[in-house]
């Protein structure tokens, strides 16, 4: 590929038609992933992280519309792709781990049936049943699943939440090749298994040179796993920097708020949350969407959208406090 980045999202807008109007969820998202890079996407639930990821695979619900924006994957525009090209993208080039494993698995088919179909259409193996079965068993074993052969015959409701999550991860890891999107992969897991799974993802990404997008609430996980972090608030990227910089020198008031919400091990001082809540997308605040919750809000924050600009080497932020 001549382009340096594997994925490049520019000014992506996603709206949802609902009763009572249009929810303007994504409001100009800029996002880039380089080859072999591990990128984190953090922000509170409902800020549009999953919506951004679903747009990459074009699996948004039917009521979603994309009025504006570009998604370039390996030099090709995803939003105008034909069905056949999309089919090549899904499963073969990009795999995704969904955040709710209970909902992501079909309740009336066995794990084996689902994992085998996933492998079959990922283009990673010859399509003979025996090979596919072996890949599936290996994938499950890799995710620390005891007795994979029995698990294959089980239905999702017969497994615990953590096991279901590992099944989903196994499916994605078995088929990932160019880009792995992990949407809160460890939220439902015990701390011990959480570590195993993260190690597994890290190993795989390193071995295959797969790029990774890790969506997470947990700043700790993001710090451990990623090279670079995007911070998202209410449908916009508000800050982007290398993982180290985000933790050492956060610029955006929202990022600072997020970091202050982490309880400190030393016990010094109280942890501070961010007062208020995410805006209503039917009628979002004008200007910077964070201004109603921002301690440093200025008059212009109410009127204009702050541009997403580079303020330091490789450190971008969308806030009027910082000018170029």
């Amino acid at each position: 590929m001549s382009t340096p980045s594997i994925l490049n999202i520019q000014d992506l807008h996603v709206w949802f038609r609902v009763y009572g109007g249009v929810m303007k969820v994504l409001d100009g998202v800029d996002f880039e992933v380089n080859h072999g890079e591990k990128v984190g996407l953090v922000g509170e639930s409902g800020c549009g992280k999953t919506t951004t990821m679903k747009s990459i695979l074009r699996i948004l619900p039917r009521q979603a519309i994309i009025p504006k924006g570009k998604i370039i994957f390996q030099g090709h525009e995803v939003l105008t792709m034909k069905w056949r090209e999309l089919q090549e993208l899904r499963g073969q080039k990009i795999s995704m781990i969904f955040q709710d494993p209970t909902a992501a698995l079909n309740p009336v088919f066995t794990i084996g049936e689902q994992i085998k179909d996933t492998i079959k259409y990922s283009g990673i193996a010859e399509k003979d049943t025996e090979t596919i079965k072996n890949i599936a068993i290996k994938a499950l074993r890799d995710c620390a699943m005891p007795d994979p052969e029995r698990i294959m015959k089980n239905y999702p409701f017969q497994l615990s939440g953590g096991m279901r999550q590992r099944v989903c991860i196994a499916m994605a890891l078995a088929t990932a090749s160019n880009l792995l999107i992990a949407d809160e992969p460890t939220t439902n897991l015990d701390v011990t298994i959480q570590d195993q799974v993260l190690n597994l993802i890290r190993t795989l990404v390193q071995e295959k040179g797969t790029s990774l997008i890790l969506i997470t609430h947990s700043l700790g996980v993001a710090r451990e796993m990623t090279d670079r972090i995007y911070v998202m608030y209410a449908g916009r990227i508000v800050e982007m920097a290398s993982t180290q910089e985000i933790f050492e020198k956060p610029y955006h008031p929202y990022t600072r708020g997020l970091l202050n919400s982490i309880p400190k091990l030393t016990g010094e001082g109280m942890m501070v949350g961010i007062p208020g809540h995410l805006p209503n997308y039917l009628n979002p605040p004008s200007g910077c969407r964070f201004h109603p919750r921002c301690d440093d809000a200025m008059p212009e924050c109410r009127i204009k959208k702050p541009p997403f600009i580079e303020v330091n080497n490789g450190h971008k932020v969308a806030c009027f406090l910082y000018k170029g």
Partner: protein
Amino acid sequence: MKSRHFIIHRLAWSVFVLVGLSILIFFIARVIPGDPARMALGPRAPQWAVDNLVKELHLNEPIYVQYWLWLKGVLHGDFGTSLVTRRPVSADIKEFFPATLELIVVAAIIETVGGILLGALSARYSGSWFDSLVRLIAYLGVVTPAFVWAIIFMLIFGYVWPILPILGRIDSNLTVPPTVTGLMTIDSLLAGDFEAFKSAFLHLLLPALALAMGGMSQAARITRASMSENLSRDYVGSEMAAGIPMKLIILKYVLRPSLIPTVTIIALDIAAMLGNAFLVELVFNYPGISRYGINAMLTKDLNAIVAVIMVIGLAFVVMNFIVDLIVAYLDPRIRLQGGK
């Protein structure tokens, strides 16, 4: 082990239901006003003849004795004599039931295939003109009684554009094949008479379609709703993300869970057809059990009423049993957790 237990349990339950039904209908048939013996013999029959018939039918005995005598007969395959046709009721049933059965089998096929197909396509292309058309037809289908469809079809295909036969079971110019199963189509095939088979089959189409319209519409609506719901589930997204082709997702992963409510509706509707076929059979002059049953009720033909109701009850029990088996097959949560 588990499935055998399930089947035995259901069979025991079915027997219980049928006995209960027989008691209920036996009493109701006798409690409603009207003297069956007088009605059978006519207003001008002499009183002694009526008295004789009352004695013959044990109508002067207490009702529990009557039930006991009736039950003893039934266990020997004897449902008593019809007061109207003057033949054993079992012989009447044997003649009329296969005719309706044949009709219902064809109607059931139309209903199942048509309902699921229309519903699934409608859900897949929801919002399109096709979806709107299906929803309109399904709406009309649900609110229009079967006999109205019968008359409409008769007008269209028998009068305006006469391509299908509209009366009876077989063309009157053809020889009726010897009765083996009582199903005209099967009997004609057994006799090797393909022309009779074709005629018998064509005679079934319009009444079966009229009979199926309501249930088919209902099935299409339920399938559409259930599929739309399942299509918006997260697993569809994850299956799409895994690169599984949309066709496979719809036909395999979405259709199967969506069929669970549809199967229940369709099966109960098919069982109900036995009783509901009356007006359709009347319009198409089709000699079926539904017509026989209604006539029995109008003339207070006690033994025939009870026998027909028992046949319909048995049909419901059998259909319920089949539904349970199909649903258990479709939904592992029911199969493996014992129906909770």
